[in-house]
């Protein structure tokens, strides 16, 4: 390859990134403006209240952590269906650590528990070459069993039982941004500027302030860490030497090996980080969301995390956006039935607009389908006045299937994702 060719490729990549950034900004603007309009038209304040945004964030954190976990494993070429099981281990060990030694130990042990699950997956798939799906499924079964067994031993008779732990009282630090959102600043009660703006119910201005305020009030330190992990993951995987080597194990392990990258080590690292993040997600559920370990607490969030990773096109920012979307749907469902119903209007208008855009670009099938579905959703909004909560439950899964079905050619997963790598045995 000549240097000129490299430059062109680089320029194209930069241009592509700039285009993507512009598209993201456009989408964000669309969401804020239209949501505010729908809020104003339907009078469902919870659609854009800071409480909803705050709850979305809390609900999105475990999904985001699981999604990032999936990202690390799959970027090194190992599919991790076992995220759910690793998260279960995280909840149990997080609760046990929290009860025995305090919340910080809960976090540490939760991460360790998830990593143990990751280690099993790594040994089975990387060292022994077991099919990755098979190993992941086995870990999910195993983790549920181990958690149940350990609960019987450790919690029964100590204020818990076979299916739940004693109460875990969390005292992890919490954070509210001063001045903007009314946090304390060295003991001084600062004003709550965004809160004041939100109360005014001015179109757009109040809605936007509510969004920012929701992301600034009463944040768990774990939430802050998780949010920092998004740019952190990007910088680590795309801007460091080690990150490049890890990704090369997922893109073309044989080429990487020939250049001296220790592919097994990279894959181990990816799967262990994956387990650690899933474990942290579990610890978050116990320490911050519920204050207790319960059997079945993860409720398929490992799988939703996997969905968020695919939805987000195996990129940290995409995973974050998807997790946010799923968290928002959950939060609305928990807080207000009216708001969920109002959301239908938003979806209907958005789909119709997308369809019109498609038609304008002469993509007739997509355009017609989009307008049609948009119209149906609009009709649904008009003739009913509530959405069954089971529908909200399935939203992330349906959305993922639709995205995969419609846009699978625009998604790009790591080239050698899921293909077992054996040193010196190339399969073409």
């Amino acid at each position, binding site marked *: 390859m000549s240097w000129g060719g490299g430059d062109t490729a680089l320029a194209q990549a930069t241009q592509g990134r700039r285009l993507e950034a512009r598209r993201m900004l456009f989408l964000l603007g669309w969401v804020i403006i239209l949501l505010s309009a729908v809020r104003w038209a339907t009078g469902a304040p919870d659609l854009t209240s800071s409480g909803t945004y705050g709850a979305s964030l809390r609900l999105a954190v475990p999904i985001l952590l699981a999604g990032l976990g999936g990202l690390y494993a799959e970027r090194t070429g190992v*599919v991790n*269906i076992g995220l759910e099981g690793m998260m279960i281990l995280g909840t149990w060990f997080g609760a046990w650590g929290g009860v025995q030694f305090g919340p910080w130990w809960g976090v540490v042990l939760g991460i360790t528990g998830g990593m143990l699950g990751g280690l*099993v997956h790594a040994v*089975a798939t990387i060292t*022994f*070459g*077991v*099919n990755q*799906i*098979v*190993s992941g*499924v*086995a870990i*999910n*079964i*195993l983790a*549920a*069993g*181990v958690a*149940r*067994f350990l609960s*019987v*031993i450790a919690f*029964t008779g100590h204020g818990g039982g*076979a299916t739940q732990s004693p109460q875990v009282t969390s005292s992890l630090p919490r954070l509210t941004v001063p001045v903007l959102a009314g946090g304390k600043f060295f003991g001084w009660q600062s004003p709550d500027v965004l809160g004041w703006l939100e109360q005014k119910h001015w179109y757009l201005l109040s809605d936007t302030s509510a969004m920012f305020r929701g992301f600034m009030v009463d944040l768990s330190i774990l939430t802050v860490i998780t949010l920092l992990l998004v740019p952190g993951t990007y910088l680590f995987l795309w801007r460091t030497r080690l990150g490049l080597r890890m990704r090369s194990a997922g893109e073309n392990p044989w080429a990487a090996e020939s250049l001296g990258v220790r592919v097994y080590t990279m894959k181990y690292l990816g799967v262990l980080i994956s387990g650690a993040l899933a474990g942290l997600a579990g610890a978050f559920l116990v320490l911050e969301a519920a204050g207790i370990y319960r059997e079945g607490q993860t409720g*398929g969030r490992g*799988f*939703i995390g*996997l*969905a968020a990773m*695919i939805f987000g096109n195996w990129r940290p920012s995409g995973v974050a956006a998807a997790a946010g979307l799923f968290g928002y749907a959950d939060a609305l469902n928990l807080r207000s039935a009216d708001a969920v119903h109002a959301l239908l209007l938003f979806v209907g208008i958005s789909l119709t607009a997308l369809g019109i855009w498609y038609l304008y670009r002469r993509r007739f099938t997509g355009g017609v389908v989009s307008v049609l579905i948009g119209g149906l959703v609009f009709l649904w909004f008009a003739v009913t006045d509530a959405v*069954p909560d*089971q*529908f909200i*439950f*399935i939203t992330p*899964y*349906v959305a*993922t*299937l639709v995205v*995969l*079905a419609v846009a*699978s*050619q625009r998604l790009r997963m790591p080239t050698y994702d899921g293909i077992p790598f054996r040193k010196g045995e190339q399969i073409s």
Partner: protein
Amino acid sequence: MSKRFRIRLLWLLVPVSAVVLAFGVSSLVLIAIGENPISAFRSMFRYGSQQNSLVSTVNRAVPLYVAGLAVAIGFKMNLFNIGVEGQYRLAALLSAAAGAAVVLPAPLHVAFIMLVAMAVGAGWAGIAGVLKVKRGVHEVVSTIMLNSIATGVTAYLLANYLRKPRVGSELLLATHPIPASGQLPPLAVIGGEELRSFVLIAVALGVLVYVLIWRTRFGYDLRASGINPDAARASGADPNRMILTTMLISGAIAGLIGMGDLFGFFHAYTLDFPVGLGFDGIAVALVGLNHPVGIAIAAMVFSWVDRAAQILDLEGVPKEVIIITKGVIILSVVIAYEVVRRLVQAQEVKNAAEETRRLEEREEAVAA
């Protein structure tokens, strides 16, 4: 001993040693928590060998077995139907509701319910099949999503459309009961426990699956696609058609998982239908080497361990220890199979090389 026989023995050794290893690990766990493993296992064997325990073992093994078959048929061509759980639950709900809604003579009624269940299971699995063939969506991802969607859809349908009106203070959510013509009488009553007749249908299903996979052109294409997709395509197997057909068959079998419980016990779909059978089916298929006989043995072992462990609570031993036992069986079996597979493959390559050399030497001798 012929080479072939030796290889068979090697394959057989894997599950046996995995079971031994699993009981060893469980013993260590029991010792670690201060229990006596020998007395625990002895009481398990005593309780597990009672007549009613054995009958119950068979009854509980049947859904595991059917689930294992559903998974195995996909595994045979490297198609991972993780969605068996969702296919089973949706099929059980809709077939129970359909069965309660029609009036038919006895054998037809049962057949009708089974047909509905198979159609629903196949339809739900078919979504994943179509997505894979038409849009290139990996079946593992789509079936995981479809599992969760099935959970929501069954809950919605049951709560809003298919439930029987509540009588008195009864809290259970259930469909309308299926009349006697749509039920199966027990095959026998042994030791106070009913042996369900669905076991006969399950056995027949196993034979059918065996014939389909090992004795038909379709089965040959299926196995060939699993071993070497390119070679299978070259020999005339259309990969898309294979994927779709296999997914439909797998889903249809998955639809039958709940039938034993439906015909022989609940006579309606309720929230008490066992959860997780689809995933247990994956475990059973793995341990049973995707062969109907192996799956039957694995299902019996898992089911027996479950039943026999019930006695442990009375002995003051946490019965959950058997979950560890099962987990170790699954994990050690998949690892050991992979190792054996590679050993056998290396041996076969060596054999082939030897054979070629011998042929070449002979040709040279002839030429000289």
